[in-house]
């Protein structure tokens, strides 16, 4: 049965799937790297004060 245009999206080709997988991995690495980067920026900005924590 014919649906709307979105239902007839052709399946991805092998090349498209491979490219999408690579892009997903790269994006994950970038996002993970950014998390680490901002964490380290915070730590280095606080400097020695990071140890000054009331228990």
């Amino acid at each position, binding site marked *: 049965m014919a649906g709307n245009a979105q239902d*007839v*999206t052709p399946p991805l080709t092998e090349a498209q799937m491979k*490219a999408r997988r690579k892009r997903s991995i790269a994006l994950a690495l970038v996002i993970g790297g950014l998390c680490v980067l901002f964490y380290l920026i915070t730590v280095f900005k606080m400097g020695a004060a990071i140890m000054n924590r009331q228990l």
Partner: protein
Amino acid sequence: MSDLGMAGSHQAALLSEAAPSDFIALLKPRVMSLVVFTALVGLVAAPGTIHPFMAAVAILAIAVGGGASGALNMWYDADIDRVMGRTASRPIPAGKVTESEALSFGLILSAFSVATLGLATNWFAAGLLAFTIFFYAVIYTMGLKRRTAQNIVIGGAAGAFPPMIGWAAVTGGASIESFILFLIIFIWTPPHFWALALVKSDDYARAGVPMLPVVAGPDVTRVQIVLYTLLLVPTGLAPWLTGMAGTLYAAVAILGGAGMLVCAAAIYLRRDGKPAMRACWQMFGFSILYLFGLFAALLVEKLALRVFGWGL
């Protein structure tokens, strides 16, 4: 074909086969390497101290910001990149990345690089980076490039800002010394690019880009190259004359400046055939070496002073 089939094939055409390397190519890595190097020199030459980790983050942010402006440039210039041999294999004209992907990529990286630089160092440096991206993408790419033969003269400012940003990351401001570093790259840009434009003038003419050789002719361009080189040599010596740099820098600036004058003279004198082309390529290549030599000498002097206490 039915409407549904048309819709399906259209959607299939929009599905990207772009690899991460295509997105890296959007950042113009070769230009980025110059941005990184000159920003590093500005950062090391600046008076004051910065934590090495924050310095690395600042360089990364400046590099990504420069790359983002390259992506925005490729997004806007995709139409002319298609007709120029030098740029036809870029990711958008090659059909690997869509224009909207490049635009989103450039905007997101711009925002992240400016925010990261601001959070890691200071907001003056971040503001300067934001202005540099704006200058390259909007003032140069959208405003000047297709309208005036002075496009790369004014647009050269965008490539000249990185050492000022590096300097600002340490000091939180600008000074005459950082402005001198800006001025060296600013005045270096016209003879460097006009040497390339002389060789590629057919490409630029086909794309409708009013580079100086296309609009005013090769003879006028040759005169302009000589004039800008005459201006560049004393500007290259300015860090030494103002006491910002030492003897090593002066030696490189004098020898390199002499080399630039020889290259400019060769371009002026050799106007036909292969010798003329060779003179243009020599100027293009040597000017890169000259700029690298100036900044490398400054970097070595500042590092020797900081690490070993040696005044070179």
